[in-house]
């Protein structure tokens, strides 16, 4: 049944239905409501999760690591500075191959302090070893929170997974969401199968040992192999979920009117929705424009993106965070995928929406209008007062 709810409520609902063994969480704007909703479910006895109210995000992720190693299904949520504080432990979660699922309510990083959305926090976690998925809407955030369990927990993957949703724009706005029945979610997610749980005292195992130059490299290569398994698992889980939900999830990204597009935008998060409105408007005027909205950012689906964009003449890649001293990270992902290809578009990079700067349909129209004349490889700023 369709309901109205905020992105936060949608995420909390997915968590309630999954009912993990442990949730360790510390509140931070704009994520706090997820923690509040879940604490309420625990207090009301609706879920039997062990809620660990910690004193910082570093402790939240540390508690998650401990609980996951002990053999529990574990979830958490954070934003911005909270992610920055727990990043040390996120690397450890990935290195220990612990499938902790985390909602990241995207918010700009200080300084200057700001509570609004950009993707700097997600970009900070880019190389931590977590799988990263971006949602366009509250519905997608809900759906991917459920798919996340199956992807992260796959025994060949076993990695932390971040579901990104834009702070305020998705987290605090009421939208239409159609949750699945509780039983269907529980069945889809299935029983958690711990691997070498610490609490299995009959079969003791060592977690987090020292690894010197003789083994560290091989262990990191094994971690990369886990990441390399993600695409195959992602597609399988997504296909099953699409069948269950009746929603059109197919692939690592959504191509919107891309098949015959001459100009296209590549983007992640809620602004993709605003861009689709512009694509529709320009299509009505006969302009061949399209959109590629990335769902799976890490691991980055480069082969498939090459296939989807090869025929496009001009592509604008929109990054909602700066990578100081270079082009945007998504731009580098997309363009490097084409490095050995003969047939390729020319690319332009736009930085947009930092610190919650609103990106309107007029801004997206501007990108399409400028694209033909833009110098290839140029770094531009959208919606900036200069």
């Amino acid at each position, binding site marked *: 049944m*369709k*309901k*109205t709810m905020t992105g936060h409520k949608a995420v909390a609902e997915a968590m309630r239905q999954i009912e993990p063994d442990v949730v360790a969480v510390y509140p931070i704007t*704009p994520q706090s409501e997820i923690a509040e909703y879940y604490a309420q479910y625990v207090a009301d006895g609706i879920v039997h999760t062990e809620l660990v109210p910690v004193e910082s995000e570093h402790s939240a992720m540390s508690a998650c690591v401990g609980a996951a190693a002990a053999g529990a299904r574990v979830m958490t949520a954070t934003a911005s500075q909270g992610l920055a504080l727990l990043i040390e432990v996120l690397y450890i979660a990935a290195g220990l191959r612990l499938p902790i699922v985390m909602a990241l309510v995207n918010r700009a990083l200080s300084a200057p302090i700001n*509570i*609004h959305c950009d993707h700097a926090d997600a970009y900070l976690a880019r190389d931590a070893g977590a799988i990263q998925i971006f949602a366009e809407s509250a519905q997608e955030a809900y759906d991917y929170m459920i798919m996340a369990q199956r992807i992260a927990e796959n025994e060949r993957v076993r990695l932390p997974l971040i579901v990104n949703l*834009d702070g*305020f*724009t*998705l987290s*605090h*706005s*009421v*939208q*239409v969401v159609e949750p699945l029945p509780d039983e269907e979610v529980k069945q889809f997610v299935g029983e958690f199968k711990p691997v070498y749980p610490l609490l299995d005292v009959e079969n003791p195992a060592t977690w987090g040992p020292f690894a010197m130059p003789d083994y560290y490299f091989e262990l990191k290569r094994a971690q990369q192999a886990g990441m390399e398994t993600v695409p195959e698992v992602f597609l399988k889980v997504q296909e099953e979920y699409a069948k269950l939900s009746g929603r059109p999830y197919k692939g690592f990204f959504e191509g919107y009117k891309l098949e015959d597009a001459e100009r296209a935008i590549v983007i992640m998060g*809620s*602004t993709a*929705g*605003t861009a*689709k*409105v512009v694509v529709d408007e320009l299509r009505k005027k006969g302009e061949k424009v399209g959109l590629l909205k990335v769902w799976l950012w890490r691991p980055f689906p480069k082969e498939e993106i090459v296939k989807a964009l090869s025929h496009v003449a001009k592509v604008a890649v929109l990054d909602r965070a700066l990578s100081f001293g270079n082009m945007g990270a998504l731009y580098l992902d997309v363009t490097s995928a084409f490095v050995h290809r003969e047939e390729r578009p020319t690319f332009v990079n736009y930085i947009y929406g930092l610190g*919650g700067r*609103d*990106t*309107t*349909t007029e801004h997206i129209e501007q990108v399409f209008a400028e694209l033909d004349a833009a110098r290839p490889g140029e770094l531009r700023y959208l919606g900036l007062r200069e």
Partner: protein
Amino acid sequence: MKEIRWHGRGGQGAKTVSQILAQINLREGKHVQSFPEYGPERSGAPVRAYNRISEEEILIHSGVYHPDISVVIDETLLDSENPTEGLNPQGTLLVNTKRSPDEIRKLTGFSGEIICLDAHEIAKGAGIGFPNVPMLGAVAAVLGTDPKLAEEELKATLSGRLPPEVVDKNLVAFREGYEAAKGARTNAPA
């Protein structure tokens, strides 16, 4: 698609009624969005909340700059908040005031439809403290919402939060706001 902007002060329930309006319209089979002006929420400070209501799926996630309806829950905001900014000239300005539409037109210079209702008085008469629910009724009237369906949804929403007698008072306030705005529409000069 209809876009609505609510002007209130922190604590007057602009965000709450914007969310309830979304629920009512979902029940009517529409696609909806409701969001507040994001930022620190302080009691008494000017706040804005927004709705989008559409027959088709709503994909846009940017702010609302050209609303079709602007709702002023607190008339002291007429001076400081410029509630007619970007307002569709074919649209509607709804104001909680004892003043007449002519006075509001003179004050704002808005050329479209102006509807005035004394939501404070309606709320007081119904026995509730806040003018937001009568204003919700007024917006429902302007949108042409089925009042019975709206009342059912309002009742369902409030029943979880308020005792039954307070819910009933809110329903009275909603209906009177609805009727006041509907009456003002009918009497409005062409």
